[in-house]
């Protein structure tokens, strides 16, 4: 078995992708300038958030996310053994490297600072968290209010009469700049509570493992998991709409397979139909600002703009209502089960002191966990949906000016190039001469599309460089599911017998035929009883969990979004198998053991 992964400097550029580095910020690619450091460092591919190649503008959000995480560890809360997470793009894929603090003295010196800062948040959690929700909603409103318009032929007369003294191009430039700043701010908010939430959860997790060394991971998760989680609200809204459609006698209007636009047009004008459409409208804001992917790609389909996705789920639910099945999650039963689990483990603790500690740690974990579960909807789904939408509006301005052919081409620009492009537009408009853009960018976009296609075909290795002896950074373990063991597994490749191991993310055992799905577009192919095998699953795939038998993912730990949803839906899941989609072929029979974290290919 090798003791290290290939060096990033050994990675060839895929044919046709020459020059890809120029599409990303100069500080985010491997270079001779930092070769010694970069070569001696361990990098893992972030398949949890970005399993596919990352378009240049999309890299913005990833840089903001990672820098937000890093600054909270390093500069806000002074996490004793961890600094930030370093980031590089290689052949269009994102590689991360958690940076630890190794000197015990330095760790010790950081402890009092951490105690003071994190302690303040833990002690005032309810008050601070109560302020978070309005804060993030206000931020999203600000994003929603952003508009991008083409530069006018003449400045409005009001600019003259009011003596404003500035022009539209300045607004265009500064609005773009505000969009970028708000995006960064959104990611600051994201990490205000998350690191601390995980720290408290991991503390409870560690204590459980100490008193019950063999306790299943999902038992711990179940004791902490919330009952009402905003992340499930979009799905719940679709269920309510299905119920309403049946109540209003509209079920047959959804019976066919017409696209949403046609179905909705058919409902218009009919009093019952209008009533249902109004309910749909109401539910969709904000809940259909919901991405079918991880939310980190502009191409992830958002329900609001792709009503065919929720409509597909709606049809499944209508059929269930008609068969007399209940759609509501059995809340009382879920609560009772959670209480039973807590009571029984508590009973098994002999020592009074340990029992008290268990109760206190569980209490704190439950206090912090709603944030861990809920933030995702507000940031990755709602916030990102608005950001992608506004960027497309700006793309339309460039389309109107003949710079680009498709509004989505704007995502082939890095965030630093956009002001330059806008300035070219501005220059032509102000001077009254042709901008260079209409000649330059169509040619350049063709080249960049070629690069993206070449990168898409590259198979990114799971990791690069020299792995550390132990993985200690809490996020790496919790969110990315990268542990010392998974590193060992990656180095050794898949098991000889074709079996896979990963995290026992959701309990139960299931057998069935595999369906390998590489992107959100494929989920419509899933058939009843199949086992979903995917690089990762997005929470928004929730409605397909009603028909599949189990889930296997390449990446993700027990707190990955996929694991949370699978537990909620009572499906066995094994996450973080690293090689699932590479090893398993659609149609093969699998046995998925969500208790042991193993996947066996039966034939």
């Amino acid at each position, binding site marked *: 078995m090798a003791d290290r992964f290939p060096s990033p400097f050994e990675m060839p550029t895929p044919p046709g992708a020459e020059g890809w580095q120029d599409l990303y910020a100069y500080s985010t690619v491997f270079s001779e300038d930092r070769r010694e450091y970069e070569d001696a460092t361990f990098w893992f591919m972030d398949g949890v958030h970005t399993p596919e190649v990352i378009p240049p503008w999309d890299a913005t959000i990833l840089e903001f996310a990672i820098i937000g995480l890093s600054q909270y560890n390093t500069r806000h809360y002074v996490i*004793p*053994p*961890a600094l930030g997470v370093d980031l590089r793009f290689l052949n269009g894929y994102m590689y991360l490297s958690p940076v630890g603090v190794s000197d015990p003295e330095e*760790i010790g010196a950081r402890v009092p600072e*951490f*105690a003071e800062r*994190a*302690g303040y948040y*833990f002690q005032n959690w309810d008050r601070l968290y109560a302020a978070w929700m309005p804060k993030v909603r206000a931020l999203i409103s600000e994003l929603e209010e952003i508009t991008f318009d083409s530069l006018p032929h003449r400045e409005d007369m009001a600019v003259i009469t009011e003596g404003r003294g500035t022009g539209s191009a300045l607004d265009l430039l500064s609005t773009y700049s505000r969009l970028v700043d708000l995006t960064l701010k959104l990611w600051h908010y994201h990490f205000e509570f998350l690191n601390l939430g995980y*720290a*408290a959860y*991991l*503390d409870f997790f*560690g*204590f459980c*493992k*100490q008193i*019950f*060394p*063999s*306790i*299943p*991971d*999902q*038992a711990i998760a*179940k004791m902490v998991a919330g009952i009402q989680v905003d992340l499930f609200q979009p799905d719940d809204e679709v269920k309510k709409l299905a119920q309403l459609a049946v109540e209003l006698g509209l079920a047959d209007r959804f019976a066919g397979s017409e696209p949403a636009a046609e179905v909705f047009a058919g409902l218009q004008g009919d009093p019952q139909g209008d009533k249902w459409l109004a309910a749909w409208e109401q539910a969709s804001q904000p809940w259909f600002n919901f991405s079918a992917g991880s939310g980190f790609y502009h191409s992830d389909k958002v329900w609001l703009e792709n009503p065919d996705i929720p409509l597909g789920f709606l049809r499944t639910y209508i059929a269930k209502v008609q068969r007399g099945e209940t759609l509501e999650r059995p809340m009382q039963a879920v609560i009772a089960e959670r209480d*039973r*689990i807590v009571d*029984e*483990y508590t009973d*098994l603790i*002999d020592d009074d*002191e*340990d029992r*008290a*500690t268990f109760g*206190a*740690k569980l209490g704190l974990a439950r206090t912090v966990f709603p944030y861990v579960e809920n933030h995702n909807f507000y940031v990755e789904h709602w916030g990102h949906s608005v950001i992608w939408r506004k960027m497309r509006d700006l793309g339309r301005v460039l389309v109107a000016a003949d710079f680009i052919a498709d509004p989505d081409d704007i995502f082939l620009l890095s965030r630093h190039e956009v002001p330059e492009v806008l300035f070219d537009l501005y220059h032509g408009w102000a001077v009254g001469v042709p901008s260079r853009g209409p000649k330059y960018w169509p040619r350049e976009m063709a080249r960049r599309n070629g690069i993206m296609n070449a990168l898409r075909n590259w198979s990114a290795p799971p990791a690069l460089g020299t792995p550390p002896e*132990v*993985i*200690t950074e*809490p996020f790496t*373990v919790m969110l990315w599911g990268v*542990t*010392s*063991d998974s590193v*060992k597994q990656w180095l050794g490749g898949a098991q000889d017998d074709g079996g896979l*191991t*990963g*995290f*026992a993310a959701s*309990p*139960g*055992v299931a057998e069935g035929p595999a369906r390998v799905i590489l992107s959100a577009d494929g989920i419509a192919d899933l058939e009843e009883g199949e086992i979903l095998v995917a690089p990762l699953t997005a929470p928004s795939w929730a409605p397909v969990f009603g028909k599949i038998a189990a889930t296997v993912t390449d990446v993700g*730990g*027990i707190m990955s979004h996929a694991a949370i949803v699978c537990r909620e839906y009572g499906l066995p899941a*094994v996450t973080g198998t690293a090689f699932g989609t590479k090893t398993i072929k659609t149609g093969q029979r699998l046995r998925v053991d969500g*208790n*042991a*974290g193993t996947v066996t290919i039966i034939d």
Partner: protein
Amino acid sequence: MAQIVWFENYQPADAAVLGGKNSSLGTLFRAGLPVPPGFAVAADCYRKALADGGLSSKLDALVAAVDPRDPASVAATGQLARTLIGSLEPPADLAGAIQNAYAQLCGRCGDQVPVAVRSSATCEDSPDASFAGEHDTYLWVRGGDEVVRHVLRCWASLFTDRGIAYRLERGYGGTSAAMSVGVQQMVTPRAAGVAFTLNPTNGDRSQIAIDASWGFGEAVVSGEVTPDNYLVDKVMGTITKRTISAKTLEYRLADTDAVTAVPVDAERQSVPCLTDEEITGVAKLARRAEKHYRCPQDVEWALAGSPGGAPEVLLLQSRPETVWSRRPRQQGGTGIADPITSMVQTMLHPVTSGGHAAHG
């Protein structure tokens, strides 16, 4: 004095004359656990028969003369004591009572019902002494006369070499020990074994560890076979670990109507001997025994019933787990109540997930 005590009539006051094993079976039977039916012959019968046969003082003198550090001396005494008891004529009233009880058991379970005849030693000096494995058990005994004969063999087994050594080592006086005998219906199990209501490798109270192998449980209890091993979480009911071993030997009922050890066919050796449903069934049974006694248990179980049918798990024995239960609580680690200090410790010593730890 009651000579015969049926398991269903057991009272805690009977413990002194029924010994640990019979008392435990009576207790579990009365608690509604699936213990095969049977009865106990009280230890008083043993004492009376020895007194009637004039052996009591003779045996005391024999044992008093033993040098516990000299195995040859122990062996010679044991041999003589067993011969003396073996030559006893069973008192007619006792033989009648045993035969009568056996006939009643046949009435409940079927003609010529096979029974296990088990030693259940008592000790006035130490009512809690376990005597685990010191005395003999006879399997698959049929017929009233045979049952009576084996009751006497159990009496004699009070003087096995290891039994004598055990008592001397612990300083239990010669006559304080006596022998009660259990007579219990036997079934032919598909698989059998033991279960601990904690994880014996780390003392984890949330787990049930099951050792299981084909046929009668003797193969597992004696350690002649490497059993399949399963770990079940008590609270979640999930099977958290399974290790399938090559089970090379099993105790089966031979054509001679006796239980004997035979090799297992090669293709059956590495087949898991329990289904998931059966594993869960064994775990639930062990958990019930633990809940009844309110402390970790070490149980023997057997799986009856036909393959494919609903698993019928029988409880053959349950006694307190002794290794981990007596160990003092571990201190230190991350069990720190102050959340900040504890979080720092957790970050410095990350805990990997169970799924990976089990396969790493």
